[in-house]
């Protein structure tokens, strides 16, 4: 036994133990990070190099198209924009002149030009309303008067006719305010409806339960477009003769009914997630159904589903763009109409990118907010 150990000891190169050993591979710092996350294996290295090449190439192409070769302004002669320069660089550079020229139209549609401060103020008010609603310290009954007052002010600003504001008929509204009005009013009305339907679907009363199931499943089974068509084509047939509701309101009703069904399912998820003990404890306290629901169940159930609710809100904000198909003048329709003019035909890409950026701002803010909220609300659950 000792021979063997001796042999192995001897076979080692003399002086090896004293030779300086190589330093261990770095595990901190930029190089180590890159080695681990970008060049971890042969495959990873290949992917990094390929993606890096493509990203650099596309970035250069995009910067050249959008900035270096772009045209920001074109001369206007006799009210006609001279877009020859833009046509010459088509495919090589962007023609942002269409935005410079048409941004007021895209944002506010055919609203009287001198009165544009009113829809602009409306948009600011909407954003403030969203920000206030997003703050957790306002999550109580104070939100109701805040919403009522803001929505009234918005109505006054858009219509005018009082307080020295000139009257602007609804047909002339357009652009971003319409998108915000459709989505905000739609959700404001759909949300109470959704809570009622969700409660109805969980109800022990068979007839009410069946009505709610029927409503939710029918609406969720058909596309929003069919409801919008219904609102624009069939709705006038439903009403008694002489009674007329304008197109925007009809679309608003369709969107509200549609959103109600989807939100009801989200709320129902929260109601189901609540432990039975909460229902039983409320019953044991002798609370009536509405006391139990309003004081015990809903506050907890809604808190559980806030993140999916925000995701549904994002969905509806995007879906309001569908009113383009029935010819209501929202942001996307305004963008599409801006390039109908012969001088600007063919510059759709620039307009759609701009409109897309506006949508992206709203939706990205909402989605980041919902992610942060999810982290905050789940903090007590994580260990």
């Amino acid at each position, binding site marked *: 036994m000792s021979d063997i150990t001796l042999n192995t000891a001897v076979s080692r190169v003399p002086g090896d133990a004293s030779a300086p050993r190589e330093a261990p591979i770095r595990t901190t710092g930029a190089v180590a990070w890159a080695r681990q996350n970008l060049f971890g294996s042969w495959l990873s290295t290949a992917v*990094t190099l390929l993606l890096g090449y493509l990203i650099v190439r596309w970035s250069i192409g995009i910067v050249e198209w959008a900035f270096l070769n772009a045209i920001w302004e074109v001369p206007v002669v006799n009210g006609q924009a001279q877009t020859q320069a833009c046509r010459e660089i088509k495919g090589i550079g962007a023609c942002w002149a269409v935005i410079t020229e048409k941004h007021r139209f895209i944002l506010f549609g055919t609203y009287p030009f001198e009165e544009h401060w009113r829809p602009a103020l409306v948009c600011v008010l909407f954003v403030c309303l969203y920000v206030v609603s997003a703050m957790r310290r306002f999550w109580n009954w104070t939100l109701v008067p805040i919403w009522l007052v803001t929505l009234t002010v918005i109505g006054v600003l858009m219509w005018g006719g009082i307080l020295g504001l000139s009257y602007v008929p609804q047909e002339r509204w357009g652009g971003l305010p319409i998108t915000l009005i459709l989505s905000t009013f739609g959700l404001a009305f759909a949300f109470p409806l959704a809570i009622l339907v969700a409660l109805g679907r969980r109800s022990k009363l068979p007839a009410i339960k069946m009505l709610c199931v029927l409503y939710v499943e029918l609406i969720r*089974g058909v596309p929003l477009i069919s409801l919008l068509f219904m609102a624009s*084509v069939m709705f006038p047939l439903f009403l008694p003769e002489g009674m007329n509701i304008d197109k925007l309101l009809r679309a608003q009703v369709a969107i509200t009914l549609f959103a109600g069904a989807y939100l009801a399912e989200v709320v129902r998820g929260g109601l189901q997630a609540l432990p039975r003990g909460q229902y039983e404890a409320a019953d044991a306290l002798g609370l009536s159904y509405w006391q139990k629901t309003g004081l015990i169940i809903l506050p907890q159930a809604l808190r559980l589903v806030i993140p999916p609710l925000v995701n549904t809100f994002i969905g509806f904000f995007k879906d309001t763009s569908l009113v383009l198909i029935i010819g209501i003048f929202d942001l996307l329709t305004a963008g*599409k109409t801006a390039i109908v003019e012969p001088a600007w035909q063919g510059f759709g890409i620039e307009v759609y990118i701009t409109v897309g950026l506006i949508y992206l701002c709203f939706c990205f803010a909402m989605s980041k907010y919902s992610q942060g909220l999810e982290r905050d609300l789940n903090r007590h659950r994580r260990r």
Partner: protein
Amino acid sequence: MSSSTSDPRFSAAGPPRRPLRLSWGDERLRGIVWQLLVVGLVVSVFWWLWSNTVHNLEVRRIATGFGFLQREAGLPIGESLIPYTPADTYLRALTVGVLNTLKVAVIGIILATILGTLVGIARLSHNWLLSKLAAFYVEVIRDLPLLLQLLFWYTILQGLPGPRQALNPAEGVFLSNRGMKLPFIEWTSVHWLALLAMVVGIVLTWLYARVARAKQYADGQPRKVWPAGVALIIGLPLAVWAALGAPFTPDIPALRGFNFQGGITVSPEFFALLIGLVTYTAGFIAEIVRAGIQSVNQGQWEAAEALGLRRGDILRKIVLPQALRVIVPPMTSQYLNLTKNSSLAVAIGYQDIVSIANTTLNQTGQAIEGIAIIMLVYLTISLSISLFMNWYNARIALVER
């Protein structure tokens, strides 16, 4: 023992029913009154709308009924899976629309699933660049309205050069503002038979896999299924094709005059709709796939490795079956969404059921019937997809004791 079973607390009948009291304090009576009120309200609202509608239809002299379906449509349809001319009936035109909707939905669902799964896996990649890129894609694509994306793609496809200067990214593939041209083979009845043979092969492979699994349960010996599978699914159609003379005539598109002849055409409308639907839905599917894979406990990987399974086997036999349970229900709603979103085709002029029904109701004035047809078609499709996915979900669901 017998005394405990006769204990009234354990009897299945529950507490004895009290007789109905005529007082507001009686819960059952309250329930009945509420239901009567709500149902009465809903019925009266619908009755009011119905009577208004009947009156309005009389005043405007619109005949109701589906008789118009047998009339000549006279509306041209660009692409159709079945033979169609404007001289055909509205019924046939609407059938063409339904088939077009199904075409884009089926192809879209398959492609979106593939792309979404790839992006979802890429988001979990250890490569920082790849996972960030996937995250960026998912975030941006989900924050833009689908309609905007469709218009964007359609504008890009419209901006392509004409057929004479068509882009030619690969041999026989041409991209122009008239759409995409792909090479194909001249399709004969022999090819149909070969396709049929492939379906037969798939069914036989499935049966064979079942038998093999039953045998494995009996004696514990694993049996290889894939050699027989390859032979049946690929070999059988090839054999049929070869036995019937192996007809093969390539049909490559070529420029003649002002447009291309030969090959198969993907219209710009269909192409834009497909790109839009696939990239949009893939963003949502990627998140579902990522959440599904992440939902499987790390311990499952480690336990499987400890058993000596190979990585592919771990993924196939341990992780995926568990991840699928989380993935399938939200995936179903994404498939339904894609199908319903295909109705946006009307905005870019792809003639799906909504577009054709809309034209029909404009031509005939049969608004109620037209919208009823649209809704009926989508309800049927939605119901079929959810039934199938529910069946599949029940099959893969966790069997608990």
